[in-house]
């Protein structure tokens, strides 16, 4: 089937017409769909963002899966399994969305295994106690929601639609995480201590999930001009702090940051300094669990190679069998 004229790249006339249509769609705040003409830089930047997001869902399964076998009640075990399973589903939707931009899932997986692709740094911190499962749900899924709700309106159709589905599930995750902490906060002294310790360790890394401060975020402006990103990193971070500052009161616990306050003049929440050197170190691969997470992903991928080959060979044989049956008929 011939592609519509607008997707034929390379001819200057078509590119000019395509660019004009693209610009109009962006100005109208409409959606760009896979078959529409789009600037190469837009395609590249989105592919990078969506595949990184997918990788984060997949690597993010590991720290939480670490507690499935030790979950302290059967109900919590079931909820945690369902959560980790949801994250696999998120990875699947996002890989599909990224594939509509022209990069196959296998290629994205290879890039991840080869260490060429990034994923969210937050998953390079260790999950040491059961309370960490609560803190991750509340803070990490919580920060993900603040980041991702605006992405439901992202200009690229398949990404925005995937985010709508994902955000619904993330809000379940956040509530479940909060419930774990609430239960601990109302429990024994040892449980309360465990909960506070987890919040202390996950607070700053979760704030850094929004990315570097606005004056040090090189890709943000272009992303905002393309209606992919809607709010700046600092803006989203400040909203998130406001949200958790209220919620932590319901837990009767505290945030490990004496500088958290609402600024009446600016109407924004403020927080203390964050250690961006640590952020850069972890991003560069020198976090506590980077090597471990990559090893586990590589191992699962390599150990599973013979299974994927078998499934492909079987499907092939079935297809050939069906084809020769048709010929014979």
């Amino acid at each position: 089937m011939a592609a519509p004229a607008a997707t034929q790249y390379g001819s200057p006339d078509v590119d000019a017409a395509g660019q004009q249509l693209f610009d109009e769609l962006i100005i109208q705040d409409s959606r760009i769909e896979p078959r529409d003409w789009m600037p190469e830089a837009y395609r590249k930047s989105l592919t990078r963002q969506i595949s990184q997001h997918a990788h984060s869902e997949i690597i993010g399964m590991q720290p939480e899966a670490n507690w499935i076998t030790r979950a302290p009640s059967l109900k919590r075990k079931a909820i945690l399994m369902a959560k980790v399973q949801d994250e696999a589903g998120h990875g699947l939707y996002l890989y599909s969305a990224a594939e509509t931009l022209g990069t196959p899932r296998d290629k994205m997986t290879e890039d991840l295994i080869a260490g060429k692709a990034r994923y969210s740094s937050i998953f390079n911190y260790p999950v040491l106690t059961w309370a960490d499962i609560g803190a991750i749900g509340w803070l990490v899924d919580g920060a993900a929601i603040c980041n991702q709700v605006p992405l439901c309106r992202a200009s690229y159709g398949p990404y925005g639609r995937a985010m709508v589905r994902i955000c619904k599930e993330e809000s379940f995750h956040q509530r479940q995480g909060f419930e774990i902490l609430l239960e601990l906060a109302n429990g024994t002294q040892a449980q309360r201590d465990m909960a506070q310790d987890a919040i202390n360790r996950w607070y700053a890394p979760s704030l850094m999930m929004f990315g570097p401060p606005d004056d040090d975020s090189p890709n943000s402006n272009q992303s905002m001009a393309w209606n992919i990103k809607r709010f700046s990193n600092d803006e989203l971070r400040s909203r998130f702090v406001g949200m958790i500052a209220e919620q932590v009161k319901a837990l009767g616990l505290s945030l490990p940051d004496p500088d958290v306050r609402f600024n009446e003049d600016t109407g924004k929440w403020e927080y203390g300094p964050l250690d961006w050197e640590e952020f850069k170190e972890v991003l560069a691969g020198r976090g506590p669990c980077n090597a471990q997470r990559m090893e586990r992903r590589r191992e699962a991928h390599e150990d599973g190679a013979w299974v994927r080959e078998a499934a492909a060979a079987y499907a092939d044989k079935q297809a050939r069998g069906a084809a020769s049956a048709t010929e014979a008929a």
Partner: protein
Amino acid sequence: MSEANASATRITPGNALRPEDIAASDAVPSPEAAEYALWLGDDSLILAQRLGWWISRAPELEEDVALANIALDLIGHARSFLTYAGHASGRTEDDLAYFRREPEFRSAHLFEQPNGDFARTIARQFVVSHYQWELYSRLTHSTDATLAGIAAKAVKEVDYHRDHSLQWVLRLAQGTEESRRRMIAGLKLTWPYVEELFADEPLIDALGGAAVRPSSLREPFDAAVAAVLAEADLEVPAVPGATGGGRRGVHSEHLGYILAELQVLAREHPGASW
């Protein structure tokens, strides 16, 4: 939650019962029915614990989702059976799962077997889900209404597990040389533990129409399994059966380690709620 895991929480029609329904009911089993509920609950609990390991380690993402789905269903069945069993002695599902010692567990050895490679996990699941399907489809007629209700929910889910595992048996047996070799090896490692599933214990006589007689399931199980293996061009492994003893609390060496991991946190905080 995603559609993929909806089976963990869906309410099925008719008299199907979920763990929450049973916790809320005041149906108390006879001591024998409680013991029988432990058999079935422990089987599912231990296998769910085994399958949970695969989540984040499966050969492809779709299998992370599928194996998690099966594990979730099994946890659901375990919770129902254990909750009901606990009504006889004033204990909760968690009291039973986390605070019984190894000899008090009633799981059969098959459920305790290691995951091994993907083919071995599939071989174990293939046997388990065929056995459970034959069992639950008959247990829906139990004279014990609660056992019948749990089975009514479980049988629909196990039907999916059965299909999932048999599709993989076909794929692996007829995929590549390597996958065929591994599938055959997986079945061979699994088969010694098949016999125990169909052994009648004195408890069964005491239960009458409340339970399903294990030996009565052997024929339909053999027929269903043989049909799939024939399609896959595989043979039923000719290996001697292991002694078993799980129903009397005599377990494989594996169970101690499984329980150590399952119970460690709960036992560090006795009496705590989560």
